[in-house]
């Protein structure tokens, strides 16, 4: 079942400079989709359109069977959580605790439940010792962690991560990846916008945007292995895959070596 259906979607901030052109995209319930693309290809714009923060010029967006319109705006939004690219401008609360609570307060969740979830999710992003701190005393990566906790705490069916781990240290990133995998096991749909190939490996499918159009989409490993598509969007092959391609070019056919490299590229 498709939880998100996008049909013939076009959008422009200013007349005659289309940012998204004729996008058609279906995302299945419980799927983990990565969106790749060069800077300015329209990834963030697409996520804002899905969220109803921007209004499409043409086309249709259907979320969980509900077409996105003025009337259904709030209903659709309550199904989606989004972690934005810039952690500075999404910190609403006066303290970490308040910020994690903000979304839940809006969803009218009981106070006890809020306290429980703040405790749970602040621990999951290792920010439980900073609950009373104001945002200007936090680092960029710490603000990103808080933003992630705030969205996880809302417990929505769909979560969009817009380069949400770009400022995290490798360990922090791994633990967030682990977190997302758990979410997916619980049935959540994940849309993750990223430039990091190692992150994209985890996803089920990949959509590649180029200059506002879908350049390619399909099974994650197929796209990650496609040199032409990646090159076209300023991305590089993962190192093990690069080695595999080199082996091919040199006509070396060592099955064991290929196997190891393949496993490596899958992060195993």
């Amino acid at each position, binding site marked *: 079942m498709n939880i998100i259906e996008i049909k013939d979607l076009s959008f422009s901030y200013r007349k005659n400079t289309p940012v998204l052109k004729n996008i058609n995209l279906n995302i299945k319930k419980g799927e983990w989709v990565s969106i790749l693309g060069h800077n300015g290809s329209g990834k963030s714009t697409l996520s*804002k359109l899905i*969220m109803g*923060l921007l209004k499409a010029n043409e086309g249709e967006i259907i979320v969980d069977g509900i077409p996105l319109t003025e009337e259904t705006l*709030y209903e659709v*939004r*309550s199904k*989606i*959580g*989004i972690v*934005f690219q*810039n952690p*500075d*401008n*999404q*910190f*609403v*609360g*006066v*303290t970490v*605790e*308040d910020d994690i*609570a*903000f*979304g*839940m*307060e*809006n*969803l*009218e*969740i*009981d*106070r006890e439940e*809020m*306290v429980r979830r*703040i405790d749970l999710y602040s621990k999951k992003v290792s920010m439980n010792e900073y609950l009373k701190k*104001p*945002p*200007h005393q936090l680092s960029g990566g710490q603000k990103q962690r808080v933003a992630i906790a*705030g*969205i996880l705490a*809302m417990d929505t069916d769909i979560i969009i991560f817009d380069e949400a781990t770009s400022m995290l240290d490798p360990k922090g990133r791994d633990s967030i990846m682990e977190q997302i995998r758990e979410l997916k096991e619980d049935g959540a749909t994940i849309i993750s916008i990223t430039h990091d190939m190692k992150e994209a490996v985890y996803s089920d499918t990949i959509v590649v945007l180029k200059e506002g159009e879908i350049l390619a989409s399909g099974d994650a490993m197929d796209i990650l292995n496609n040199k032409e598509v990646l090159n076209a969007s300023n991305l590089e092959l993962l190192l093990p895959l690069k080695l595999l391609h080199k082996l091919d070019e040199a006509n070396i056919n060592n099955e064991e070596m290929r196997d190891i490299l393949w496993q490596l590229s899958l992060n195993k």
Partner: protein
Amino acid sequence: MNNIIIGQYVPGTSFLYKMDPRSKLIALFVFMISVFIIKNLLHITILLFAVILILRIGGIQIGRIFKGLKPILFLLSFTFIFQLLFVKGDVEDILVDANVVITSINIFIFIGFFILWRLLRKVVKFRFLLFITFLVGSIIMFINLTPGSPLFNNPYNLVIYKQGLEGAVFIMTRLIVIVTMSTILTLTTKPTDLNLGLEKVLKPLKIVGVSTEIMAMIIAIALRYIPTLLDEANKIMLAQASRGVDFSEGKFKDKIMQIISLLVPMFIISFKRSDELADAMEARNFVPGKRRTRIHLLKWTSVDTILITVSLLTLSGVIVTRILGW
């Protein structure tokens, strides 16, 4: 960045910290009204005494209050001097009437004499020092006591009236008391509680159609962004400085250009920030005016009732004495 006090909470344990933000806000409001209707020096003394008492019992360092007063120091001295010099009264209310020219010559001579004395003390004989002293003395006498001299007939007389001095003292005390009171509030109240307190206290305004949740939310966000925006201003200043803009010196016209070079980026950044922040809030299901649950609870205790009572008593005391004309 470090001398900014607005909205700055400093952790502590005194009774002021345990109080409900609502009672603090209401008490502040009531005190402010009292401050504005007081009319005589006795009231001022009582008010100042009350403020000092709160500071002492509340365990607040006076230094922090001074920090809060620093930004308005210029305003304070300006109003003080303005009141002192330009408020006029009757002739019998004149406190000081000094001829500006003669006064400045006197001051000049005294300073000059003092410096001369220090310089010459070691190198010349006592006899000569005595001579200079007498010389200066007679010059001063000549200037000050000879009404016929042209120095006396100049229009620059400095006159200070009783009313001027009173007005100056009144305005100063009012400003100081108000700033001190609000500084006490922000020092001892977490921004979160302040926000919630404001929302509740402003609730009556709902009747006139003002959306108090949104107002409180905007105030809270403004408070939350002050440090960030100051940080931003700092960065812009550094960036402009590295491009050759000098913020420390320059003529008036240069100063204006410098301020513009700061304001334009600040304006753009604030706009972009507020836009993105609004997106982030809406994305987290914020619907202006819709019901929300709250993570923080407010607790009203007997201390709060006492504070409110005290502030109301003060106010009614001031009103009654004014009506009675004391």
